[in-house]
């Protein structure tokens, strides 16, 4: 199955520090798939925002199963190609979009979170720093209404997927 993966610069996996082989070569996990413990992990478009990092890749998983909402795990996987549309510029636009979406003219705690997100958005330089803005904006949504965080994350992921051309064709 096809899925997506965010990596640090140089194809480095964010949690294990493992460097992925170049596209086409399979990476096999040392142990059977277990959520966040072992196996090759990848993302479905609806959770993209939570995991934003510098590089976005299309991946192919051999035998992937969804072990948590939006997270698929397989015994092996390989990179297919870089989603070039996810770059520093897109990250800055993402950050601005997240902020605009939770702007709260009415004040209160939600407005404070939104203002923090806006301040952070001004400092975004790459995919990695955009991630914090997304988080802060989602907290603003939660402050405005319980359950807002999850809904905001879904909206952010949708925006991101659309912006980098994942939702077309």
């Amino acid at each position, binding site marked *: 199955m096809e899925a997506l993966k965010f990596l640090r610069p140089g194809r480095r996996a964010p949690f294990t520090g493992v460097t992925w082989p170049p596209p086409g070569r399979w990476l096999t996990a040392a142990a059977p798939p277990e959520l966040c413990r072992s196996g090759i992990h990848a993302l479905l478009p609806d959770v993209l925002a939570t995991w934003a990092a510098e590089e976005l890749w299309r991946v192919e998983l051999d035998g992937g199963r969804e072990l948590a909402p939006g997270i698929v795990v397989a015994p092996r996987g390989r990179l297919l190609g870089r989603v070039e549309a996810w770059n520093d510029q897109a990250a800055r636009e993402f950050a601005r979009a997240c902020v605009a979406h939770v702007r709260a003219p009415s004040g209160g*705690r939600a407005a*404070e*979170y939104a203002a*923090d997100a806006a301040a952070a958005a001004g400092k975004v330089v790459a995919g990695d720093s955009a991630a914090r803005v997304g988080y802060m904006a989602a907290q603003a949504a939660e402050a405005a209404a319980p359950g807002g965080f999850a809904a905001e994350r879904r909206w952010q992921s949708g925006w991101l997927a659309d912006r980098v051309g994942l939702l077309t064709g």
Partner: protein
Amino acid sequence: MNELELLGALRRGDERAFTTLVDLHGAGMLRLARAYVRDRDVAEEVVQEAWIGVLRGIDRFEGRSSLRTWLFRIVANLARTRAVREARSVPLSALAAADVEEEGPSVPPERFRGPEDRWAGHWAIPPEPWGRPEQALLSAETRARVAAAIDALPGMQRRVITLRDVEGWSAKEVCNVLELSETNQRVLLHRARTKVRHALDEYLTGSQDQD
């Protein structure tokens, strides 16, 4: 030679088997002894006593644990006894400071935003990146700092980090030798690593936390 063969050869009085074992484990045994008694000369005496104990007990070793675990348990037991004996001549106040396993958070609470803050629990003073390539980190000076930081740890934390991270043993083996539960071993390892990271951080970033 594998462990079983080494054991057999040693029982037959094979000197090469003995020196092989010494080369394999001697440095680690000394490090463990020093994690109890600190003084290098005393630690060397402990290790020598341990080898005597090993040779005397070699026929009785049943192989229920690995040879290595058995060797190091002998060292730990002797070192513990020796440490108590040495401590009797040390002023009580120094003892108390050295070995109290303290409670409380690993990182000073002031480093995080307080409970009234809307970002409660987030870093208030975030860690500064060390910004150094791995090669530079492995310099002799930095390693000396790490060694000093380990040396300054309270006893049990020092022993756990020595066996786990310096010697590279598994959690299970360390629990066996030091007679710790898995949870206790992890707590001690956590505190030790946190302190060593902190010492490294102060050295590499030139910062000082208010204590």
